[in-house]
């Protein structure tokens, strides 16, 4: 394994930072929750570093990292998500293939999100961002707003749907330009 503080390590860090966002989206495509995705990302980062000596610099780092991440996600799903409803391996593979192909579209959608958030009424924007802030409990947020958790979920569903339609529209429009 390479030692710390050498050029090899710097090279790895630079490549990982360049592709981290795409890799995170790719991992997220295979697992149902953000927490699972975070854990797989950590495992993937460790394995990528451990195997970085084997990486051929002539190859596409992103493809290599996606391969490692796919294996990590499948192992994780088999080992640790037995008690939850998750998709079978065939569908996870199929989603991973689609996600790798949709890499550019997803990047464009992430960039468009900021514009779409600005178009939301302020109260809705604050609510959705609060709901996504780490440590927020939905039941507490609902109580603060004088709502039931169920009605809060419904509002959030509608906001997410509106945001998704907005980012898709924005990206489609930009593709024409």
């Amino acid at each position: 394994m390479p030692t710390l503080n050498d050029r090899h390590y710097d090279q790895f860090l630079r490549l990982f930072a360049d592709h981290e966002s795409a890799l995170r989206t790719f991992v997220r495509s295979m697992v149902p929750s953000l927490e699972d995705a975070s854990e797989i990302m950590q495992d993937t980062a460790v394995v990528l570093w451990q195997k970085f000596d084997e990486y051929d610099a002539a190859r596409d780092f992103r493809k290599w990292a996606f391969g490692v991440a796919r294996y990590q996600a499948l192992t994780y799903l088999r080992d640790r998500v037995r008690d939850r409803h998750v998709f079978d391996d065939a569908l996870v593979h199929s989603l991973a293939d689609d996600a790798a192909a949709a890499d550019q579209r997803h990047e464009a959608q992430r960039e468009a999100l900021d514009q779409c958030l600005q178009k939301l009424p302020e109260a809705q924007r604050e609510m959705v961002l609060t709901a996504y802030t780490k440590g927020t409990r939905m039941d507490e947020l609902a109580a603060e707003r004088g709502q039931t958790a169920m009605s809060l979920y419904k509002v959030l569903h509608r906001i997410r749907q509106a945001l998704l339609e907005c980012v898709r529209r924005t990206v489609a429009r930009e593709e024409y330009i």
Partner: protein
Amino acid sequence: MKGHWHEQIQRYVAGDSTQEETDALQQALKDDAGLRALYLDYLNLDLALGEAAEAAVLRENGIGRTTKFPRPLALSSAYHWWWIGAAAACAVLVVFAMLPGGSGSTGAHPDIDATITSAQSAIARLSLEPPSPLPAWTSPTASLLEQPRISE
């Protein structure tokens, strides 16, 4: 059809789907590439919203905010004058040292000796007491004593 799947996808992502709902969604995703794209776009949105929320918290806490500090205009002009003064004193010393008789003559040119002594003491004073044109709070340790007040 789409409205139903919007809801089913979000329920699955939130971990609220029953086994039957998961099975139905799985089958639909296997059969329909457009639905797979919708599912992946939702997951991407979910991730991006998490990042946007994190960025909003960082902004609110002031991390990453650009603060405008007062520009230390006095710094450059005061230092200029300090260096000009020091250079002039040196020039005076050099000129007098090159005069016939040199700096070693003491009794012959008492006025010159007095000038040299005065210039030397002026230089010594300058090097002992450099000007401090910056406000005290810009010192790295001054923050322990008093915080700057930046007017709105």
